[in-house]
């Protein structure tokens, strides 16, 4: 059996890379991809705990998270496209519509 610690380490590192990407990248598309990466790290945790507790609930929840991620990407990409139509850019630094 794959040790729980190894899975948790990989999942933690994936999540950290995702957070770093969200914080340092300025492209809205890449930020969305990093959010997906973080959801995947959470999924990895769900599956690892399901495997080690011997119950299938974790896997069922990971499947739900996957569907949720798909919905999130659909809305997020629609937002990016709408934003690009309005402002001609997807760099989040240039988007300051709420600044008075």
């Amino acid at each position, binding site marked *: *059996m*794959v*040790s729980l610690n*190894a*899975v948790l380490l*990989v999942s933690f*590192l*994936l999540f950290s*890379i*995702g957070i*770093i*990407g969200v914080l*340092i*990248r300025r*492209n809205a*598309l*890449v930020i*969305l*991809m*990093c959010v*997906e*990466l973080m959801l*995947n790290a959470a*999924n*990895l945790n769900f*599956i*690892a705990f*399901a*495997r080690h507790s011997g*119950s*299938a*609930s974790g*896997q*069922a*929840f*990971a*499947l*739900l998270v*996957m*569907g*949720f*991620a*798909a*919905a*999130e*990407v*659909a*809305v997020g*990409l*629609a*937002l*990016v*496209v*709408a934003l*690009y*139509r309005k402002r001609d850019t*997807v760099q989040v630094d240039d988007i300051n519509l709420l600044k008075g």
Partner: protein
Amino acid sequence: MEHLLETIGRNMFAIFGVLALGAATVMVASRSAIHSVLAFLFAMLCVAGCFLALEAEFLGMAQILVYAGGIVVLFLFVVMLVEMSKKKEKEVFQLQSRYAVAAVLIGAAAFLGVFRKVIFGTASPEALVLRPELAQGLNVARQNAQAVSRSLFADYLLPFEILSVILLVALVGAVVLAKTERV
């Protein structure tokens, strides 16, 4: 036998985990959005490999279908729409028939290699005989899939239904958000 499966699982997880971390780093670090998308695709496939190593076979396949088949394609379409102002990105999407022909040929060869017996061979009368450890692995996979479906449709039916409503709302919302201003 048990030991062999466990060793394979552990090594698979190590390889795919390291590859996923590397691909994720490339995704964050690369300058062009298209390279980020491709690295993202590779990372998702590696995470699917990790799922397989953790004996979540159904989820691994679902991950490949949902991410490689759906989400990455969506991302590629949006990159194509949005990032075309840059010259470098433009070159990536221009007609590259040589690579396209090569890719199609490789795909066709792989397909024929896998399905050659089914297409050209006669219908095999003898039943498929697997090596015992493979048969055991297949059995475990079947049991896992059954357990997941039972858990999903018996214990978590309400979250499942709520998720389907969320997907419907996301679908309508995406159409409303992305449609042009003039109606």
